[in-house]
């Protein structure tokens, strides 16, 4: 099964389980989704529940918020995070804010899915990663599933969450293959998870960066360095405990973040490690982030701008000193 099929299966389960659940977004119906996630769902559920929208990000994200206020359980697909900027006012000023501003009256059980990330040579306006921007906002829960099981289980968990959830699906993951265990169900949307045990350094990554970070850990193993890999996967609220526990054991940390470095989520994680585990550290916390440049089109420049297994492994070796 592919990642996109896992997301589709979760949407199908959610819509079968709850008549209030529906999917809306640009080209989710007849087209089958820009990334083919919702292919076939229109036939099963019809146009009321697999609802094509005009290119009106502010209106259909806001309508998702209104529908959630009105008792529905909408899943809104924003084609990519790049276009979500057109709906940012609705996400920040309404979805994330209504509960507090109304003194606890206005619950917004809304799931917003969006494709994110770079690596497909689609240049500066289609390669953004704004994980940290969204994770900055109180009231939101922000998830970055990196595996088949999480792509499926985090969406199911999000559908039972009483507050707005942002789900980032990395464009490079949609075609990735894996097994969905029999009886797979909702997974935790509060905790990070250790994907690989190790003792010399903790590599911290999520979403589209997890696979290349695991590849870097393989390279490090060949060089005699035992790297632990933590998949953050819940970007807000951050699971400090899993990260801190790992760093206290390995005494070294490297954060891999696809965002631009300045003001990124990696800065927040590094600060928290300093706050919680400073005296356990044997070396400064390291970061591998994207180059601070609008994403260029040609492949060699694009790849140079992004964290790669080689650059991750090199940064880790520098921290370990071997």
């Amino acid at each position, binding site marked *: 099964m592919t990642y996109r099929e896992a997301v589709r299966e979760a949407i199908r389960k959610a819509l079968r389980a709850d008549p*209030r659940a*529906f999917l809306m977004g640009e080209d989710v119906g007849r087209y089958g989704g820009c990334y083919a996630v919702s292919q076939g769902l229109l036939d099963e559920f019809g146009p*009321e529940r697999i609802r094509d*929208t*005009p290119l*009106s990000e*502010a*209106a*259909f*994200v*806001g*309508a*998702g*918020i*209104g*529908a*959630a*206020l*009105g*008792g*529905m359980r*909408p899943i809104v697909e924003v084609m990519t995070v790049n276009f979500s900027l057109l709906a940012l*006012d*609705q996400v920040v*000023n*309404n979805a994330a804010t*209504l*509960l*507090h*501003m*109304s*003194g*606890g*009256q*206005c*619950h917004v059980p809304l799931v917003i899915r969006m494709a994110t990330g770079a690596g497909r040579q689609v240049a500066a306006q289609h390669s953004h990663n704004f994980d940290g921007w969204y994770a900055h906002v*109180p*009231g939101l*829960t922000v998830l970055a599933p990196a595996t088949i099981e999480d792509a499926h289980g985090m969406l199911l968990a999000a559908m039972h969450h*009483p*507050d707005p959830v942002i789900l980032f699906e990395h464009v490079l993951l949609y075609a990735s293959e894996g097994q969905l265990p029999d009886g797979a169900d909702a997974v935790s949307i509060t905790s990070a998870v250790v994907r690989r045990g190790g003792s010399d350094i903790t590599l911290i990554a999520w979403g589209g960066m997890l696979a290349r970070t695991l590849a870097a850990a393989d390279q490090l193993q060949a060089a005699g360095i035992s790297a632990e890999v933590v998949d953050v996967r819940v970007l807000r609220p951050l699971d400090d405990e899993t990260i801190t526990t790992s760093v206290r054991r390995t005494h070294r940390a490297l954060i891999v973040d696809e965002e631009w470095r300045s003001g990124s989520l990696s800065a927040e994680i590094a600060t928290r490690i300093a706050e919680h585990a400073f005296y356990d550290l044997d070396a400064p916390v390291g970061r591998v982030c994207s180059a601070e440049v609008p994403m260029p089109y040609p492949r060699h420049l694009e790849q140079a701008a992004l964290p790669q297994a080689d650059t991750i492994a090199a940064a880790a070796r520098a921290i370990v000193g071997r």
Partner: protein
Amino acid sequence: MTTVPATPATTPAVPDAAHARDLLRDMLRIRRFEERCAELYQAEKIRGFLHLYIGEEAVATGVMRALTPDDSVVATYREHGHALVRGVPARAIMAEMFGKATGCSGGRGGSMHLFDTARRFYGGNAIVGGGLPLAVGLALADRMLGRRSVTACFFGDGAVAEGTFHESLNLASLWGLPVLFCCENNLYAMGTALVRAQAQVDFTTKAAGYRIAAHAVDGMDVDQVAAASRDAVATVRAGDGPMLLEFRTYRFRAHSMFDPELYRTREEVDAWKARCPITTYEARLRAAGVIDDAAKATLEAEVGREVEDAVAFAESSPWESVDTLTRHVYSEPEPGHAT
């Protein structure tokens, strides 16, 4: 640059004495409540921004009259009057403006963010144009859940320049949703005159561009507002898709409390004040024999008591404990559920 619409040559007949007295009462409640708010602002009991609706009372009063308790309301940051005539208790509104725990938003919203979900009053939205998509969504939920409710969405002329106006009208029309778009055209987006901000100032033509039926209504005449709203709500409720009513009205006071009003003339303001929705309606009711001096005095006394009771309630209400600062950022587990 702006012109004052002429008073209709024929004064409409007063439809029903009790109904007419209720309309006058609601307009007066808004006026007296807000006059008191202005005093309390000077006394620093109310802080932050305070946007008064004085002059525009006929609009909220007439529209709310057309709605049922199952309908939804989305309003703007100039929404004290809408909340009051929707049935949110004056006490809860005033306490909210004081920032007290007993306020209709628990004190966390203030003047611009009045909420009462039990009365389906969904704010209190202070981003111009930000409420229109919510109204579309509320109407979508009603439709999908088989409810025959209408969502009334208030916004000003300023919002018509926002993208969300155009996106929301398109979406509501495309999907045939039961939204009554209520444009309160008071001719100024804060200090920018409509004619200086929008190439097309006839909003009914903008609605027509989205195949939405629209009418311009004299927003200074509560009977005309009530009649137009009643007809429009019936049409929308019947499933004929959204409608837009443009209420031509005028804000008598400053935009907020920090406004030197350099952008309009005293003569213009005075010309509109001569068309005050309350004094003109009162005169009409007196001429029709619906009220007299004694009835007016009784009405003023009742409204005054309601306002003073609200002030006393707000004054004596407790503040939220600082311990609760971060409440309501995320939903709290329901009792009996493990965290």
